[in-house]
């Protein structure tokens, strides 16, 4: 047996004139957390709908656990756990009723699979009689995950599970995913938030229906082709426009109150940038060497695609 769990090749999907997917290929190994990172409109939801047999691709092939997403859709539907972008719970049903319902439609035995959701569900169990609509965002998310897991799926597909959820719940959610992974479940997750990339085993950076890069977060970050400096400042706008005028600069972008600048050639180093700034009266701002993050990489890939 191969250890590939989910596999896609040349997937294309158009909605009228809109090209949602422009030939996407990727493979996800068994038991890993694979992240599709990209902004709204990158094609993440379309891709997930194809993988969950909800949409037919216009071209290309995809399979999950060896089952073809078009031909074997009936069987696939028994082994997939899916959490669509919007929390797909019945708001007017209680926590308990939702769980029972989803177990029912998958003909799953709650007590038999309870160990899978125990850690997650225990946190919302005190509210078992509360209607799902009255739960906080974080609790809804836990319930939705419990419902997606109750039939013991082999592959879990989560479409933007952390959108609209606060930082604490987001952190807890990722901790849950990492525990689930240790139970051997393959997890595909999409997110528009770059900082979640490092929590995945491997990621694909998506934009405009294409995958710009994929690999482990470390691979992607270490492939960043430029030297990167970081400057802290209170005068972001002025400094930004100043640096963009400097020769030998590849790009300069805001990162909060910092500016990340990448240099185009070996001659431009910390010294040169520092001197340039001092010449224009920025004495407090000191450039320092920085390690590129996923967001730096994403921006770089986007610019590469725009010009190329």
């Amino acid at each position, binding site marked *: 047996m191969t250890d590939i769990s989910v596999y896609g090749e040349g997937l294309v999907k158009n909605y009228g004139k809109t090209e949602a997917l422009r030939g996407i290929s990727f493979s996800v190994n068994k038991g890993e957390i694979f992240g599709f990172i990209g902004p709204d409109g990158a094609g993440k939801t379309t891709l997930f*709908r194809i993988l*969950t*047999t*909800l*949409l*037919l691709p216009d071209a290309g092939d995809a399979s999950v656990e060896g089952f073809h997403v078009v031909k074997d*859709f*009936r069987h696939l*539907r*028994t082994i*997939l756990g*899916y*959490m*669509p*972008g*919007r*929390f*797909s*719970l*019945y*708001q*007017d*049903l209680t926590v308990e*009723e939702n769980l*029972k*319902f*989803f*177990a*029912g*439609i*998958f*003909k799953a035995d709650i007590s038999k699979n309870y160990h899978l959701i125990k850690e997650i569900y225990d946190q919302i169990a005190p509210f078992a009689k509360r*209607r799902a609509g009255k739960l906080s965002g974080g609790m809804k998310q836990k319930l939705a995950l419990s*419902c*997606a897991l109750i039939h013991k799926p082999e592959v879990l597909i989560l479409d933007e599970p952390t959108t609209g959820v606060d930082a604490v719940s987001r952190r807890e959610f990722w901790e849950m995913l990492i525990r689930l992974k240790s139970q051997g479940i393959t997890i595909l997750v999409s997110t528009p938030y770059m900082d979640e990339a490092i929590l995945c085993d491997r990621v694909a950076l998506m934009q405009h229906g294409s995958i710009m890069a994929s690999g482990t977060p470390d691979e992607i970050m270490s492939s960043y082709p430029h030297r990167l400096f970081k400057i802290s400042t209170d005068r972001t706008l002025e400094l930004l426009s100043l640096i963009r005028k400097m020769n030998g600069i590849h790009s300069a972008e805001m990162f909060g109150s910092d500016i990340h600048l990448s240099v185009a050639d070996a001659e431009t180093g910390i010294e040169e940038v520092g001197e340039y700034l001092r010449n224009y009266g920025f004495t407090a701002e000191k450039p320092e060497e920085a390690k590129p993050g996923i967001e730096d990489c994403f921006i770089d890939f986007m610019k590469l695609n725009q010009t190329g």
Partner: protein
Amino acid sequence: MKQFVIKEFLHIFRDVRSMVILFGMPLVQVLLFGYAITNEVKDVKVSVIDQSYDYASQAVVNKLFASGYFLKGEHISSTSEIEESFRKGENKMVVVIGPDFAGKLETGQQPSIQLIADASDPNTANLLVSYASGIINAYSRELIPAANIPVIVPESRMLYNPSLRSVYMFVPGIITILLMLVSAMMTSISIAREKELGTMEVLLVSPLKPFQIVAGKVMPYVLLSFINAGSILILSYYIFNVPINGSLLLLLGETILFILLALSLGIFISTISNNQQTAMMLSMFALMLPTILLSGFIFPIENMPAVLQWFSLIMPPRWFITIIKSIMLKGSGIEYFWKETLILAGMTLVFILASIKKFKIRLA
């Protein structure tokens, strides 16, 4: 499947709006129609043009005004003043007794007696005429007890709305409307809601077959619609004495057939609408308005322009109203409306097939 039906009932019972539509509507509609119509006939102004003015005609007039239903309205002396007095609202009905009333009675001829009612309010007019006819017939039996056929046959004319329907006609109409509303509109909305909220995605990804999803959604509504139809029948039977002259079993059977038709229509609507609003609009325009306007419930089909008459042929409620009217009011059996029944069955089949074809196992 069991879980599905349970869930569906929970949705319905937790939603105040659906509960009101489901259980409040039948009650309110029946009571509204019933009371608004029956209670109006009291002390209605009526005028008599007595062209005979003999002992027999005066006796009829006395009987009429002794009944308690009618009050003497503005006096008019000729038939040409009738319209004018209707327009002014001075009279609601005019009784015209032809010449030589007593003479004709004595010689066994049919005396002429006309009831002319202001049918701009058709229901009142209808009631007035039937009450007046009843009184006159009673008098005629008093005169010649042996005769089974009424000697005096009042000739009635409805001004402004010549083909008039009886109060009883509203019960079949209400049942039809409510079944359409509950079965078609509520199912279509509830399926569309799952699409709108995104839960349909999860259902589709589950091993459930489309047939199971639809059946699970529909089952509670079959039951509720049936309870609804039953409660309307009971209400109208006990409160308004609307008769059920034909077979109750047949009536219930036909009702189930119509419920199935309405449900399949509802499912069909939901397959072509993606959110609750569209489903609602479609149900309103495709179902409710035609049911009310084109089924013959309010406006007589015979009076419609030919195009609309043709159009009304494809309106399921039209056939159903015909059927239940026959059963309830005429007491006829299936031999009189097997054609209508077949048409309904055929339509049901068409919509079920169309829905199955349209119901997607995938998204868009």
